[in-house]
């Protein structure tokens, strides 16, 4: 290829030019996310303290910088070289690593506010963002809380109270009946009033336990019999709960924005149905499911609710939507949501800027008819977690290599980490929010594919394999999703990208090309000039680069080279999933057939920690007999408690951990006989 003839210096120059052109483009794109022009004459605050960390702190600081506001970061001691600390004008350490002693430490944060003279506080999400106590303490010292007032936080913070308020504000809530039902016929009458399908269960039974779904009168009678028996026998409590059953529910939420003068807007919806363990993974705006009239109905109800609690600032009203587009209020989040960037992409509003303006008491500039839906935006939450273990168990580590795909246009990456950052057990394992934008959904999706392929993350396990599978899954592409998407599509758990004959060939060809290149390079000892490799089938790439842009049979593919060793083992990230390929010469492959297979360790008799974390409890001791499925110990990692159970009946041989201990991934916890 052309580069063969190029001198090294020219090559470098070309590389420099490439970056030079990328940089401004990148900035231009970033600006394009917000169409509203910032008005410099509108005085808001001189100095804002951001009571948060990570990407959201960085996100808030960016807008503050744009608005000419000085920023104060707070941080725990382990975060003292974090990105948000470096970005802020001032930084105050508020305590040691555990959140309860730092980011939730109100005394220390109040001290930080006093010592820096911050006039307002942006709480981000999580931590103190929906803490009415914190809002009260700020108010007491005359510091502005950038968010709704305490009344709204309190009203919406209580699940029962918020439903009552919603009902009163004529917002759809899930219809239901909770009380003593005497006869089957009475149950049928209630069910008919609610409308089929209905869900029947004993009131005292928690969660989905003993839940029965009835689609007609006959099933209702049957459900009544079972549930009332169970209610009496298991719980000694006759009350039954009959509620509208939401089939294939979607989680769709409406972004609202309100000021202190009684104006409120709805900024369209976000579809957040792709979830695991009630945590969102992929979000998009708008939703493929809503028609304009449903959207308006939902938006108007959301605004009614906001007005009912004199809401100001940005907030989110969450709804469950059934397959017939009936929607029901779930809860209202009185803060900036994680997934707010997709709303910003399609509306052009900078929500943080609006929150700051509103907090200062300015009226909203926009009218409802000013709020557009421009194009389509998708957000993937890139987590440091292992997607092969129940769709994502936290992993920790140091980002030894890290490259965001921000050189691509229409890609926005909100992150608070950089190469060399630690993902620790103390905080949320989110690496970044990867947002792509396009005129159409297809465009945004294809951009997301590119962005995921170009995202270099080394040092921690991440969920890019899962994200890439979701956004390329036919059901997702067709918009046929619900909150049960992951368990339905992967009933046996996520297993990575499944290769077909053609993709398998592509992978093997790529690995072989890489192997040949490194073999050829091994023969270039004492060659003093540098030149780039080029292979006809592969395009141009270097053995040192983590990214391998290949052209295989005229298809452009972005592969990543994860590792390569002398015994011919090559690990490539291909279509999001990492594959281990072994490339051997013909001779080596023949001789390899004589090599014995090594017996792996018997894992049924040992229990190793599946993730790094803290041992909360050990339920067994040496000599105990455990039954299959019995809990052995509980590990807490990133605010999640994980119960580890025995895979078979056995006697406990030895216990290698105790409560309170910190364990690493793969550490031996318990041995069985």
């Amino acid at each position, binding site marked *: 290829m052309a580069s063969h003839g190029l001198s090294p210096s020219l090559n470098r120059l070309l590389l420099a030019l490439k970056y030079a052109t990328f940089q401004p483009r990148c900035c231009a794109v970033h600006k394009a996310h917000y169409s509203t022009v910032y008005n410099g004459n509108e005085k808001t605050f001189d100095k804002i303290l951001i009571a948060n960390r990570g990407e959201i702190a960085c996100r808030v600081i960016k807008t503050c910088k744009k608005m000419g506001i000085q920023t104060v970061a707070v941080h725990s001691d382990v975060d003292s070289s974090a990105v948000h600390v470096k970005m802020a004008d001032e930084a105050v350490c508020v305590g040691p690593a555990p959140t309860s002693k730092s980011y939730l430490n109100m005394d220390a944060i109040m001290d930080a506010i006093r010592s820096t003279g911050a006039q307002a506080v942006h709480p981000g999400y999580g931590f103190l963002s929906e803490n009415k106590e914190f809002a009260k303490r700020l108010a007491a010292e005359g510091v502005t809380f950038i968010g709704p007032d305490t009344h709204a936080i309190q009203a919406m913070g209580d699940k029962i109270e918020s439903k009552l308020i919603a009902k009163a504000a004529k917002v759809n809530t899930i219809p239901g009946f909770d009380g003593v039902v005497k006869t089957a016929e009475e149950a049928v009458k209630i069910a008919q009033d609610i409308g089929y399908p209905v869900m029947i269960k004993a009131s005292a039974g928690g969660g989905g336990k003993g839940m029965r779904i009835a689609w007609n009168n006959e099933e209702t009678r049957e459900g009544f019999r079972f549930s009332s028996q169970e209610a009496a026998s298991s719980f000694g409590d006759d009350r039954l709960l009959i509620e509208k059953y939401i089939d294939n529910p979607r989680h769709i939420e409406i972004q609202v924005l309100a000021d202190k003068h009684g104006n409120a807007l709805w900024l369209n919806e976000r579809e957040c149905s792709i979830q695991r363990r009630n945590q969102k993974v992929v979000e998009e705006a708008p939703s493929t499911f809503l028609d304009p009239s449903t959207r308006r109905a939902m938006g108007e109800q959301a605004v009614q609710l906001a007005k009912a609690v004199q809401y100001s600032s940005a907030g989110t009203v969450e709804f469950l939507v059934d397959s017939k587009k009936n929607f029901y209020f779930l809860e209202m989040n009185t803060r900036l949501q994680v997934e707010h960037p997709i709303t910003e992409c399609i509306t052009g509003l900078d929500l943080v800027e609006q929150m700051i303006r509103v907090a200062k008491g300015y009226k909203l500039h926009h009218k409802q008819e000013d709020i557009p839906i421009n194009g389509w935006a998708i957000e993937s939450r890139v987590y440091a977690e292992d997607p092969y273990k129940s769709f994502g168990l936290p992993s920790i580590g140091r980002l030894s290599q890290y490259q965001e795909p921000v050189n691509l246009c229409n890609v926005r990456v909100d992150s608070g980490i950089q190469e060399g950052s630690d993902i620790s057990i103390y905080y949320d394992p989110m690496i970044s929010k990867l947002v792509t934008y396009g005129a159409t959904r297809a465009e945004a999706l294809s951009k997301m594919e590119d962005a995921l392929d170009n995202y270099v993350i080394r040092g921690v396990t991440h969920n890019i394999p899962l994200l890439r599978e979701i956004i390329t899954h036919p059901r997702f592409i067709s918009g046929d999703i619900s909150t049960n998407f992951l368990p339905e599509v992967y009933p046996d758990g996520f297993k990575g990208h499944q290769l077909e004959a053609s993709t398998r060939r592509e992978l093997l060809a790529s690995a072989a090309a890489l192997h040949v290149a490194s073999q050829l390079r091994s023969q270039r*000892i004492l060659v003093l000039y540098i030149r780039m490799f080029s292979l006809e089938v592969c395009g141009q790439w270097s053995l040192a680069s983590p990214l391998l842009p290949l052209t295989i049979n005229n298809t452009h593919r972005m592969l990543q080279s994860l590792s390569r060793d002398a015994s011919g083992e090559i690990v490539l990230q291909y279509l999001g999933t990492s594959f281990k390929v072994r490339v051997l010469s013909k001779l080596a492959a023949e001789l*390899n057939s*004589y090599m014995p297979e090594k017996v792996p360790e018997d894992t049924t008799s040992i229990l190793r920690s599946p993730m790094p974390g803290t041992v909360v409890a050990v339920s067994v001791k040496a000599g105990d007999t455990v039954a299959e499925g019995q809990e052995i110990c509980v590990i807490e990692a990133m605010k999640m408690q994980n119960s580890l159970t025995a895979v078979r009946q056995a006697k406990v041989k030895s216990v290698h951990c105790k409560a309170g201990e910190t364990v690493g991934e793969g550490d031996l916890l318990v041995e069985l006989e």
Partner: protein
Amino acid sequence: HPVVAALPQSSSQRDCRWYSVSNLSVKERIEKKRKAALLGGGQKRIDAQHKKGKLTARERVELLLDPESFVESDMFLEHRCSDFGMEQDKNKFPGDSVVTGRGRINGRLVYVFSQDFTVFGGSLSGAHAQKICKIMDQAMTVGAPVIGLNDSGGARIQEGVESLAGYADIFLRNVLASGVVPQISLIMGPCAGGAVYSPALTDFTFMVKDTSYLFITGPDVVKSVTNEDVTQEELGGAKTHTTVSGVAHRAFENDVEALLNLREFFNFLPLSNQDPAPIRECHDPNDRLVPALDTIVPFESTKAYDMLDIVHAIVDERDFFEIMPNYAKNIVVGFARMNGRTVGIVGNQPKVASGCLDINSSVKGARFVRFCDAFNIPIITFVDVPGFLPGTAQEYGGIIRHGAKLLYAFAEATVPKITVITRKAYGGAYDVMSSKHLRGDVNYAWPTAEVAVMGAKGAVQIIFRGKENQAEAEAEYVDKFANPFPAAVRGFVDDIIEPSTTRKKICRDLEVLASKKQVNPWKKHANIPL
């Protein structure tokens, strides 16, 4: 040479016919012998070898060398023993129990011997030793490394002292070649008794897991002498020698992986002490900045980090061939490349025993440094060392003379020496770790560096003994010494650099130091404290 000798005496016609007939028969015999040599101890034994998960001597050579590059010598050589029925034809194998010759690895010359377990269990006869000595002599003459693939039951007992003489001949050559050409041993089967001293004399010993053993005496003798019950694997398997004894430098899963790794390893080495460190084509920009390094050293000086993270981030393509990765883990040594040029890396490992120097790590480091120095490989040292490990175990074990080895090795080395102090450089260990005072060419300190006689707590207890306000004194000491300035103002470090620029700076320095010339005073040989 009876045939050749017979020629001039014979008359033309008859002898022509005789000659041609005889020629045919010789040709046939050559073919036959060659075929026999290729089969070693016969198909049955080859199958048995395969069944054990081992390759044959010839398969190993073929896999190790570039295709078609092997030039064999002494294929026809046979043992000369005539006792115990050894003189019978069925007990003669052309080439005897070793395959020898030369070949190329990625185009570079190498001499190889590969012991053939299918012939008398690979036992060492006088002929066997003669073959090995021949290629070693040649390797010395032309200046090329020697690789030995060991798979031998031991001495050829039938030959008695001739076999022992053979061993000694090899040992002598191992010693003479030491420091002249690189010598590598790959143990791929048993290697017991006196035989172990040949690998022990070579520069690097690698092993194959589960199928190779190295010991002076086997489990049976151990049982009868010391009454210890021990398995072959526990006594001299790959795990023992790579983790406990430090006899072997690395172990690999099986024959194929071992040989492929050996090829990779060979790429790092110069052919002889006359050659410079090899430079391979490099795709990794030599001016690459490594931002991750700016945050790698934790704030708390008591908190550990992984020195390998630094090494991987700095060297070309994160490619680091670690030597003895599982032995004396408080020091990291191995080969890497900077801008394509082979370098030796030495680094304290804060993750293990705080990276202190003890007996094992000193010896491990010293031997590696001396190899690099002997073969013109620049040494890059990363320092984070709290000192030498205290305690009776260490003192009784002779930490003084063992620690001196590392000091000696660094001081003696005349290859380019670049040192980066990442954090602690305390006490005598600071001097040892390729300090400026030991002729370090370029010595850098990161902003996190602390060069001092000892940690603040200990120092304050001595300086301000009995005084109150120890905490205040400690703070003063930290302020004065827990930073790179005391060393920098005296010129003991050349510069304080941003960690992210380390790769760029080292690459640039190596370029300059390529022409470094430094000679130690003439001596017969030095006297390292062994």
